[in-house]
C-alpha cells in the first residue's frame, strides 16, 4: 500500500480500541505514570521548574533591554510541553510556534544556547540571528520555533510523512541506521485553529494516514481574543478532528501527570498504527501574550484561579505527600525539593552568565547563512564602486 493513498473511509477503526479510552480508564491496569520510575517524575518537576525559572529570568532580561524583538513567555504552560515531550522518543520530530522556549528546554536545549539566542549572541541556537521566536535544535529533533501563526502545522505533517516514508518506502533512516516507527508533534496555539494552513494539513494527514499529532496548546486566548470569540465549536474542538477523520481528544494540559497518562496512549497508538491525532490540550498562560500586553481582555481573578492549581505546585505536592517509594517514604522530601530549586537556579544563572559574556555576531554574519552559494553582492557596504569613468568624456 502506498502512503499517499486515500484513507477516506472508516479511518479510525473500532472505538473500543481507541487510545482515548485506554485500558487504565476502563479499570484495567495501571496509569502509565505509575509504571514510571520515581526519578522520572522528579525529572519532570525539574524540567518544569527549569522552564519557570528560565522564563522569569527572561522577563527580567527583557525589561532590562537585554533581549530585543518580541518575547512570548511560557509561564503557566510548563506541564503542556513537559507532559507531551516526555511521552515521545527523543528522535520523534517536533515543531512549534513562537512561544517556544519551553519546548526547546524540555527537548534538552541548554540554557546558554536558548538565552544567548534571545540576547542575539553568536552562541545562540541560531547564532543569535533568530531570537525568541526561532528556537531550532536539530540534534534534539526540534524543527522550530516559527513566527507565522499556524504555518508550522503543515511542516509537522511533512516531518511525519518523512518518517513514515523512511519506515515504509526506504526501510532505513536517512540519518543512517534502521528506520523506526515515529510520531511527530505539531504544536499550535488556539488562535492558529483559525488559519487555513492547519485545515489543509489536517486533511492531508487524515487522507494519507500521516503519524502527526496536532497538539493545540489551548490557553484560551489568541492575543486579546478569547477562544469563543474567534473559533467555532470551541466547547468541543474534537469536532474539527472529526471533520478530517482524525482521532480527537481533550486533555488537561495543566496537570502534567494527567497530561502524560492521557497523551502517552495516543502517542503509542499513533506510532503503532501510523495514524494522525488531534489533541485539545487545555492550559493557561499566566503572563500577557507578549511582554507588552495590558491584558484588558481578562480578569485578575481568572489568572489567580489558574495560579491556584499551578502545575509545578501540584506535581511537587504529589511527590511530597502522595506518591511513595518502594520503602514507603514519599518520593520527594522538602529538603530535596529545595535542593532541586537551588540547582536549577544555579544552572539558569550560569547559562545566562555565559550568554551575557558571549560575543555579538560579527557584521559579516549578516550575509552568511542565506544560501550555499550566495550572490557576492549581498553586502551593500564596502563593495560599491562607480566603475571606470568614460575616458572620452
Amino acid at each position, binding site marked *: 500500500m502506498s502512503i499517499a493513498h486515500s484513507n477516506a473511509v472508516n479511518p479510525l477503526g473500532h472505538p473500543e480500541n481507541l487510545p482515548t479510552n485506554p485500558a487504565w480508564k476502563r479499570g484495567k491496569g495501571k496509569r502509565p505514570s505509575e509504571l514510571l520510575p520515581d526519578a522520572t517524575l522528579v525529572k519532570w518537576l525539574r524540567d518544569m521548574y527549569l522552564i519557570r525559572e528560565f522564563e522569569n529570568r527572561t522577563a527580567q532580561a527583557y525589561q532590562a533591554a537585554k533581549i*530585543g*524583538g*518580541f518575547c512570548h513567555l511560557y509561564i503557566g504552560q510548563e506541564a503542556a510541553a513537559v507532559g507531551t515531550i516526555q511521552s515521545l522518543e527523543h528522535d520523534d520530530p517536533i515543531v512549534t510556534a513562537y512561544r517556544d522556549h519551553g519546548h526547546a528546554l524540555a527537548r534538552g536545549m541548554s540554557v546558554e544556547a536558548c538565552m544567548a539566542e534571545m540576547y*542575539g*549572541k553568536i552562541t545562540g541556537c541560531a547564532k*543569535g*540571528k*533568530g*531570537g*525568541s*521566536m*526561532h528556537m531550532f535544535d536539530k540534534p534534539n529533533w526540534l524543527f522550530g520555533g516559527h*513566527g*507565522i*501563526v*499556524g*504555518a508550522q502545522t503543515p511542516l509537522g505533517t511533512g516531518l511525519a510523512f518523512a518518517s513514515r516514508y523512511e519506515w515504509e518506502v526506504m526501510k532505513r533512516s536517512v540519518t543512517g541506521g534502521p528506520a523506526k516507527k515515529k510520531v511527530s508533534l505539531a504544536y499550535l496555539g488556539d*488562535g*492558529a485553529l*483559525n*488559519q*487555513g*494552513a492547519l485545515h489543509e494539513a489536517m486533511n492531508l494527514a487524515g487522507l494519507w494516514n500521516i503519524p502527526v499529532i496536532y497538539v493545540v496548546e489551548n490557553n484560551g486566548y*489568541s*492575543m*486579546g*481574543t478569547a477562544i469563543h*470569540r*474567534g*473559533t467555532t465549536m470551541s466547547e468541543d474542538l474534537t469536532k474539527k478532528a472529526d471533520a478530517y477523520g482524525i482521532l480527537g481528544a481533550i486533555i488537561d494540559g495543566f496537570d502534567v501527570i494527567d497530561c502524560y497518562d492521557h497523551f502517552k496512549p495516543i502517542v503509542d497508538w499513533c506510532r503503532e498504527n501510523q495514524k494522525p491525532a488531534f489533541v485539545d490540550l487545555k492550559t493557561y498562560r499566566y503572563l500577557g501574550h507578549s511582554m507588552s500586553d495590558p491584558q*484588558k*481582555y481578562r480578569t485578575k481573578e481568572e489568572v489567580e484561579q489558574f495560579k491556584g492549581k499551578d502545575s509545578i505546585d501540584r506535581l511537587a505536592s504529589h511527590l511530597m505527600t502522595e506518591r511513595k517509594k518502594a520503602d514507603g517514604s514519599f518520593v520527594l522530601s522538602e529538603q530535596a525539593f529545595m535542593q532541586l530549586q537551588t540547582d536549577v537556579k544555579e544552572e539558569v544563572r550560569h547559562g545566562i552568565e555565559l550568554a551575557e559574556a558571549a560575543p*555579538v*555576531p560579527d*557584521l559579516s*554574519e*549578516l*550575509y552568511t547563512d*542565506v544560501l550555499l552559494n*550566495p*550572490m557576492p*553582492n*549581498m*553586502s*551593500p*557596504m564596502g563593495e*560599491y564602486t*562607480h*566603475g571606470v*569613468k568614460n575616458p572620452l568624456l
Partner: protein
Amino acid sequence: MPILWAMPRTEKQLQDGLTLVEAINEALAQEMTRDARVVCLGEDVGFNGGVFRVTDGLQKQFGKDRVIDTPLAESGIMGTAIGLAIGGMRPVPEIQFEGFLGPAHDQLVNHAARFRTRTRSAITVPLTVRVPWGGGIHAPELHSDSPEAIYTHLPGMKVVCPSTPTDAKGLLLAAIRDPDPVIFFEPKRVYRSYREQVPEGDYEIEIGKAKVIQEGTDLTVVTWGANVFQCLEALDALPEDISVELIDLRTINPMDKDAIINSVQKTGRCVVVQEAPKTAGMASEIATIVMEHCFLHLKCPVQRVCGFDTMMPYYKLELDYLPDAKRIAEAIEQTMAY
C-alpha cells in the same frame, strides 16, 4: 453640512500635533463618520485597538459591526474584505505586520489585483489594506520587512507609503475613496517618533504624487517611508556646499516618475535610499527610470543605498542592516566626487 468629528482632539494634540498613529486614527474616524460603507476589520483591531493601537477607540465610537475583531485568519480576512468591496463597501482591513501578508497574498494578487481587468472595469475593488511596514523598532524578521516592490511588481494594486502624519492622513483618505485596491504601508519606525500639526479637516493627498522635501541643484536623493528621516539626518551632516534635492515618493505605485525625472535632469546625480534588500527592489526600478529618461543629463551613475540581500537580522545587527545617515552621506559624497 459640517462633518461631526466623532472624537475631538486632546489638549496635547492641539498643542503638539499628532503622531502618525493618531493621524491615521483620525482619518479613519472621520471617514467612518462621513461614509457608512467604511468598515475596519482585523485581529484585535476592535476591543484592543490593534497591536499598534492605530484603531484605538474606534470600536467604541462606531460599534462592533463597523470595527470588527476577526479570528486569526489573514486569508479569510483579505478574501472577506475583497468580497465586501465588490459588494459595495469600503473595507479597511489591518494586517498586523507586513510578514503576515503571506497567507493573504493569494487573495490580494489573484483576486483584488485582477478584478478590474477581468471585468473590463465593470467591477473594481475599493479596498485599503493597512499594514505596519519596515524595520527600526527592534523587531525580528517577519516584523521588520519592506515588501513594497513585490506588490508593485504585481500589477493591479496601488502601493502607498507615507512618511509623515500629515501625508498619512491625506493619503489614507484618498486611499479609502479610491476605486482600486491600495496597500497602505505605515512606517512603524515613525509611528510615535514625533508629532506635527495636521490639518483638522477633510483633505486628500493625491495618490501618485511625490513631494520635494528640500530643493537642491547638485544631487537628487529619492526615498520613501521612514528613510526620509535618515536622509534628512544625512543632509544635515553634509558639507554646506553640496545642494541636495530630497524627494519623498509617498506613493510607490503608481510612481511619480516626472518628479524624479525633472529633478535628475536638473541635478545630474541621483542616490536612491530604501530599507528593502538591494536586488530587484524599487531602487533598481528607479535607477532604470533615470537611465531611460535622464541619460544625457547624468554626470555619474546612480547609486543605491539599501538593506542587504538577506533576511532582516535580529535586533543586535538591525541598525547595521538599515540604511543610516552615515551610509547615505557617504553615498552622496562618493557620487559628488565621481
